[in-house]
């Protein structure tokens, strides 16, 4: 199948949407499909062989921050040319409500169009002036995919209609192997956490309280924390005597993130709610980390009801401390959980996810026809 993928954001800026499109494109090619990606990119960016630049992205105020998107009649004509030359069987646009290439492509194209919505949009009120544009684009889209329940809600509000939920893939290969950070996990054992420190629902406070219980009992135990946020504020929640055993890495690079998962004996996901999927959990599973996680519905599903990781009563530091202590004392159980996690995460691996996406492509192609360019 010839697939045209449209990326709305600049390829040279790291971001979840760009990463998703790269992984999807490469996996589709592994599965034997022909893929072309059109994306905004700086002139000096080296693009992979399957990607085409639609020109430089321009920073503009968008949704309360500055977005780097490509718009304007020049971008529009480049997209039309790409559509014409590509002869695609399916056009797959990402984030079609963003003022960028995806909107332009869906506007110009005819035939089977699939749209994926990634981000839950905080803008709740629809724009009157923008409604006709989004309505027109919405009418042309044959199938919609949402990566999370929140994204699905946004899509329904913005473009109408319903969407199928296909969660983000995890590139298992990228997490499978890595060297632990120097000196970790260490002889006294190590607990780990990854996520924003200042976002209450990520539950760092629960973990710090649990460490307050475990720390005095286990003199060698350390806690490794990676993620952006106010370090001082986090440290204030740790009893002073234990502070030298809590290591805050702050925001880490992609490579170091993988190493963090491999640097701890027990990885903790103490989230108190709001997770639709738990990408961090899936990454930790791909790395084979023994996991202790809150008993949220989403986590229970990802961890197969506790088979691929221990669950504890959400928000309860005592329960977390007990569960972590049990695992720290039982290397055999840790190895068992690690193997189970690696098995369970395959359901979220890119090949599995891409196959679901291909099913969507095949369904919209049943209607017949291929991608063309409309007269306007």
């Amino acid at each position, binding site marked *: 199948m010839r697939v045209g993928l449209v990326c709305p954001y600049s390829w040279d800026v790291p971001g979840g949407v760009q990463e998703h499109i790269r992984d999807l494109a490469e996996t589709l090619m592994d599965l034997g499909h022909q893929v072309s990606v059109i994306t905004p990119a700086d002139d000096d960016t080296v693009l992979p062989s399957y990607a085409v630049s639609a020109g430089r992205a321009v920073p503009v105020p968008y949704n309360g921050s500055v977005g780097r*998107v490509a718009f*304007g*009649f020049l971008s529009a004509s480049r997209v039309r040319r790409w559509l014409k030359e590509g002869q695609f069987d399916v056009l797959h646009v990402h984030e079609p409500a963003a003022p960028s290439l995806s909107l332009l492509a869906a506007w110009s194209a005819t035939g089977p169009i699939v749209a994926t919505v990634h981000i839950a949009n905080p803008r709740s009120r629809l724009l009157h002036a923008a409604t006709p544009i989004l309505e027109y684009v919405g009418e042309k889209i044959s199938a919609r995919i949402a990566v999370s329940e929140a994204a699905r809600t946004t899509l329904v509000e913005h473009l109408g209609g319903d969407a199928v939920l296909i969660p983000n893939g995890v590139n298992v290969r990228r997490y499978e192997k890595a060297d632990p950070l120097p000196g970790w996990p260490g002889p006294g054992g190590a607990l780990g956490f990854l996520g924003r420190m200042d976002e209450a629902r990520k539950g760092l406070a629960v973990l710090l309280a649990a460490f307050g219980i475990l720390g005095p009992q286990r003199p060698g135990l350390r806690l490794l924390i990676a993620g952006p946020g106010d370090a001082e504020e986090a440290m204030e929640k740790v009893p002073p005597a234990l502070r030298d055993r809590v290591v805050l890495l702050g925001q880490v690079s992609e490579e170091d993130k993988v190493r963090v998962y491999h640097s701890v004996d027990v990885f903790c996901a103490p989230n108190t709610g709001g997770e639709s999927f738990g990408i961090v959990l899936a990454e930790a599973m791909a790395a084979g980390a023994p996991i202790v996680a809150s008993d949220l519905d989403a986590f229970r599903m990802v961890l197969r009801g506790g088979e691929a990781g221990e669950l504890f009563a959400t928000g309860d530091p005592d329960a977390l401390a007990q569960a972590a202590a049990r695992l720290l004392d039982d290397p055999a159980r840790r190895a068992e959980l690690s193997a189970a996690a690696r098995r369970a995460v395959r359901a979220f691996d890119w090949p599995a996810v891409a196959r679901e996406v291909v099913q969507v492509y095949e369904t919209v192609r049943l209607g017949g026809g291929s991608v063309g360019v409309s007269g306007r």
Partner: protein
Amino acid sequence: MTRIIVIIAVALLVGVYISWRAGRLDRMHTRLDTARAALDAALLRRSSVALELASSGLLDPATSLLVAGAAHDARTAAPGDQELAESDLTRTLRAAFGQPDFRASLAGRAGAAELLAETEAAAHQVFLARRFYNSAVTTTRTARRRWLVRLFRLAGSAGPPQFFEIDDSLVAPGSDEAAPPGVSRLAG
């Protein structure tokens, strides 16, 4: 006896002077209110024209969506967020107008020249109205700092007027592109 007359006369004169100063300050506040009303009207006009441009079908859909979103946000911003939202509208219009060959691409389209001219005129009016308002703020703030005004609380209990600080230039600072007539350029 003469001494009493002199004291009364001086007190009277001081009273008249203070009330004259209070009147001056009052007129200053009136001018400030008028300038603010003019600024709000100019901002409203600009966001209306921007919305009209966005829904005119002259621009490509992505640019339309950007301009419509920025204009909508500027119109509905809470008082604390207004300066940021209006600056965002300026930057969005600047990005739209700043596309290479933007004017050439619209040349000959029905109504395009008029709508572009109207948008630029509205943006220039914001530029003017903001300067007049800020200058009224400056004079009022200076007058309010005088010891006499402070001693007799002639300015009342309201806080000092605030400057309205936004990015209001349709031409990017440092751009060597000549500003078309009627398009404002930031001084300095």
